[in-house]
């Protein structure tokens, strides 16, 4: 006869083994790619609090472009991307759907110029550095459009964000479209912000995009991911002091810089998330605008509709 405690232990062991077995049988974890960006750090923050379980695996990538490549190769099921990256991904044939908005840029992306350039019109014929596949192109396209110019009117120099400082200091470029923290570095050497995403509100979105093939069988996981993200975003709203230190700790940056970066983005509330997923939302407007800009600039080849761009199934119910 087993003693009571021995029996209980045995039951527990059986249960653990059963769980392990079931876990082994279930879907592979959802692999989500995250490149360094303050707006995306709420996800690791949620993970620290165990709001995200082992069914979601966070994969660090160097950039959104890398995330797109990994999505295309099947290494990733989802990724944190800028809206324009999503549109490029779809143009490249990836079936992507946006399931949540991470943040909107409000000053985090900017067009920096040498002090002698006073307005957009003076950019004509100038050399502008940017990462051709990045949000900088969007920033620049929008900026040039506001000054009545087009991409054809300037000289583009494709540069990784890490190379910008060197290019700037060598005088090889007259302007650069980039984002934090690289923008801050350039500002430190005297660059002037000609335009920033504050001038193009609700145009630069950071989102979670999911490969549609990966959705099947992972509805619960995605629901969990999105609600964890939203809970983490709510924490930033509810307790900014705590969130600041946590994000700074995650980024391994001084609090002051994290604070500044946080100031340059807007994290959506639950209500805002729901608004973004409504018909005719700012997010869809942005998508259409980016699409239009990119088509005009011949950056993307195929026209695309927004039919399956948004997938609001995983958002929690709005607070009543």
């Amino acid at each position: 006869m087993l003693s009571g405690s021995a029996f209980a232990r045995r039951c527990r062991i059986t249960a653990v083994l059963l769980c392990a077995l079931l876990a082994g049988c279930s879907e592979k974890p959802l692999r989500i790619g995250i490149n360094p960006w303050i707006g995306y750090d709420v996800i690791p923050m949620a993970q620290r609090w165990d709001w995200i379980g082992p069914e979601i695996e966070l994969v660090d990538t160097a950039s959104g472009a890398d995330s797109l490549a990994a999505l295309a190769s099947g290494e990733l099921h989802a990724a944190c991307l800028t809206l324009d990256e999503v549109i490029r991904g779809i143009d490249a044939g990836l079936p992507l759907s946006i399931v949540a908005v991470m943040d909107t840029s409000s000053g985090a992306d900017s067009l920096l110029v040498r002090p002698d350039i006073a307005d957009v019109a003076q950019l004509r014929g100038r050399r502008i550095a940017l990462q051709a596949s990045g949000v900088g192109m969007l920033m620049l396209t929008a900026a040039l459009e506001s000054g009545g110019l087009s991409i054809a009117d300037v000289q583009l120099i494709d540069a990784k964000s890490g190379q910008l400082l060197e290019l700037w200091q060598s005088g090889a470029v007259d302007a650069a479209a980039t984002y934090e923290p690289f923008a801050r570095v350039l500002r430190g050497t005297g660059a002037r912000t000609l335009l920033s995403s504050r001038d193009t509100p609700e145009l630069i979105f950071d989102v979670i995009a999911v490969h549609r093939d990966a959705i099947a069988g992972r509805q619960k996981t995605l629901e969990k991911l999105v609600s964890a993200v939203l809970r983490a975003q709510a924490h930033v709203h509810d307790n900014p002091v705590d969130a600041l230190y946590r994000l700074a700790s995650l980024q391994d940056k001084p609090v002051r810089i994290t604070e500044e970066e946080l100031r340059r983005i807007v994290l959506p509330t639950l209500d805002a998330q729901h608004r973004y997923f409504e018909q005719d939302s700012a997010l869809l407007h942005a998508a259409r605008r980016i699409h239009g800009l990119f088509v005009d600039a011949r950056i993307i080849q195929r026209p695309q509709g927004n039919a399956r761009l948004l997938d609001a199934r995983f958002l929690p119910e709005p607070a009543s």
Partner: protein
Amino acid sequence: MTRVFACLGLLLACLLPLAPLPAGAQAQAQETPEPRIRVGISMERSSSIFSDQIASLRVFFRDIGRDRFTLHPLPPDELMQAIRNRQLDAAFLNPYQTAYAQYLDQRARPLVTFKASMPAGRVGGVGGVVLVRSGTTEIRELSDLRGRQVAIPHRLSFGGYAAPLYELHMADPALPDSLKISASGTHRDALEALLAGSADAAFIDTVVLEQLTDDGVVDRESVRVINAQDLPAYPAVTSTRLYPGWTLVGLPSLTAAQTDTMLAVLLDVRRRSIGGLHGDFSLAHSYEPVHRMLRELGLPPYHRTPALSWQDIWRNEPRTMLLWASITFVVFLLAGFLFIYARRIRALFQQEKLNARRERALRDMPTDVEPVDILPFVREQLDVVKGLTRSGFAGIYRVNAQTREIEAYAMAASALGADTAEPLDSEPLLPGGGWAECSESTCALTVNDYGGSRQQQPLPGACGPVERLLLSPVEAGSGALILGVANKSAAYDAQDLKTVELLSAQIWGTVRRSEAEAQLVARDREARASADLLQGIFDSFAGGIVVYSGAGGIQLINPMASEFFGIGARDAIGRRLTDYGWQFCDRDGQPMNQGSDPAARVMLQRTPISNLTVGVCRSDAQPSAWILVNVRPLLDSAGDIARIVVSFSDITSMRKAEAELEHQAYYDSLTGVPNRTLGIESLKLAMQQCQRRGRRVAVAYIDLDNFKEVNDSHGHEVGDMLLKVLAARMHVALREGDTLARIGGDEFVAVLCDLQRETDCLPVVERLLSLSTEPVTLDEKVLSPTASIGISFYPQGEVALDAEQLLRQADHAMYQAKTEGRNCFRLFDQASNQLLENKHQLVNDVRRGLTADEFCLHYQPKVDLVTGEIRGAEALIRWQHPERGLLAPARFLVPLENHSVLIDLGDWVIDQALRDLSSLPTSQRDLAVSVNISPPQLLVEGFAESIRERLAAYPAIEGRQLELEILETSALENTRDVAEVITRCAEFGVHFALDDFGSGYSSLVYLQALPIDTLKIDQTFVRNMTHESADLAILRAIVSLAQALDIRIVAEGAETEEHCRLLRALGCEVAQGYAFARPMPLAELVRWLDDWQPSRALAGGRVTAPAPAPAPAIGAD
């Protein structure tokens, strides 16, 4: 935090003197024209450090020149009391106290937040630290604190109370209440309590641990932090989330100007370097997170309403509670009564309802159903029974008492998982299973504990356990069919039994009635169908059927018979066919006995008649129709004839067709006179008869002269009409008993019999001849036919003759008449007969020789007289006769002239020549061969085509190597046809030569009309040629004629050198004859050709073979 407080105190002490509260402060405020700002501060730590720092910093603030503040350090609860009482204008408060102050008055505003500086960085927020002794192993995480003794500074401490409590609350909402918390007064006290072991854990503010460690108050190693957060950016250790830190709160009494002053000074601190002040100020954050925390924790000023317990109510309101309990009891009691009565009433209602439903079911049940619907009807009614008895199953089972088996008859759909559509097997009948008992006793049986006590009877087609069972025989007094219902949720009662009995009786009544009716209907239908079938056969039968009654009158007549005899079916009843004037005759047309027809005969003889051919006629006339009759008598039980069935088919047309065929077999269809067959038969008959009577028979063979020309010039229709006219005339010429037969195209035979003498036939023959030669006008054309007649007689002494021989003799005599000028008759004589016989024999012999391969070809070369080259060879036929030896053509060709066998022979010659040619050695393969061909063969239809096909069979032989030599005969008169054949043969290269030119019918017309290539001069001219002869003159003329017409010349019969020389001199190029070679077999020819030297020709050649008489080729050589 101790140092922070120290700093704050220091700062404020610089700004304002310390003042007692409350009375002193009140008094000072009244005395001072410009009231000082009263700032409260929580006293939470040792005052020695506090005062030290005040001293060092007071200097700085004095320099600034502002001295308008009074500082009021108060214990936490007194501080909150002072705020509540509006005794302070501002206060430095921890986050908890700040939220508390805001709760007390919403006008309390956090103005600036203090951010302490630490070596590791600026402290932008505060939290709590949970400490245990480092030796403690049982507390590893927050949940391990459950039920533990915890030391805290005081209950208004934020990091030392509220923040850790909230962290515990987040981990498990029950945790905070389980703690045993003791307030020690200050952080240091709390720590000391922990280290002293009077508490298991201590909660303190963030930063405090670091400061106390720096001050040496606490050994860092002696304590361990629980739930330490991984926040490298935060310069201190924390166990909780972070919140806005200490803040200066502007209280409602603080004026706007004072607020500005305070903000200006405090925010300015950052710009200045103040020794000893470790930190600066920034604008305050929102304290909403702290409010939320306090709300959730239910800490003061927020409160959680405690749960109200029954004990509390009992304690407070015992009477009310008793009252309510009594009321509740009464209500329950009443409800119980109501429930019971309601059940009874409901049972009554249900009883009524059941009765009504049962009656409705009985009323609605059909009284009869179609046979095919019986089973569905029973199933449907079983469903009704099942519903009325509220059973789970209803079925009728057949119980077989003999075999002790139970089998399903019908089941309600979906009964016990039954498949009602499948045919069901049987199961053994189990004693004790209920069904057996019910069947034996033929009484109903109710078993309400079937599931528990009984042996379960397996039911075919149903599966599932039976709990309750009610069985009732379907028919009273019979246990063969049992209706069973089962598995009612409650026990079966008398009502259920009544329902089952009533319904089963009515169901079965309907089934029985329907079955009986169905049987009747089926029997009736079968009878009707059978009658319809017979009537159909009777009406549609292709033959006639007449049924007579035993009395002999017609009883039934089918439409065909009615139509055949032209009598109405109704009208005929009771009458006989003879009543309508119909008579019957036998196969030969002889009338049957008076009043007798086949039916009457059977009536008398009582035996059936099968396939009797009977003629049907009106009265005594010839039969107008023929029928094939079968008659059957039908006997009644007494053996008398009850009916006679006559069936017949009309075979009139068949009889007519037979007669026609017979006529065609013996009569000529054109002229209507007997044909050859009947003619021969008549002749045979006449020969027999005359022999018996001692008389003679003459056979006249009549052949119309030039009838072919009539056909050719006037057409076959005219020819046919002429034949008809002449046949009719000849028929007239004959005597009665004589026979005229047409035995060929224009050939007739008249058999004249019963002659006393042979000459008796002559008048008839002359009449025949004269009638045949009278002009005939046909189609406005006047034809003058003539005929040749040959006559033979029978008997001819002792010579045995048959009809064919007699006919052949007449034919021969007719031939004689023809050759002797036509339009006459000749009597047959024996001598000419012999010739005829010989010829006949020879033809047969030649045919046999061809089959036996007795013929062969010899070849005689033709030589160019100028060059000496070989210009070909002539093929000459020889017959290696088994009895007569090697025969030259003259021996068999001449007697057979114009006979068709020569065409066969000619074909053989051409074939053999080609065969020989192809077998020559390659060096001689180019040799040309000439073959003699008779004009009749040339004119055989398709001759040119046959030559082309023969040449095609030998691809190595070219057409130009074959030359056909045509004999000049009368047949060549038709030059147009001959020329056409020559032209067509020339298309594939075959040459033509005119043979024996000058010997026979030579006509220069041929030379002009026929496109021949070569002229062969008859050997008689050559042989008799001398310098002065007329032959030489003719030869010369022929040669010059041929040269003029561009025709080659070949001279036959060149036998000597002289011949050759003369011929060469005449300009004749080619010659053949013994001068060069005699005709020789193929093998010899091959050798001869090999040996031949062209120079010899110039010398006249050389004879290489023994010379028999010059042999004619086919025709002549």
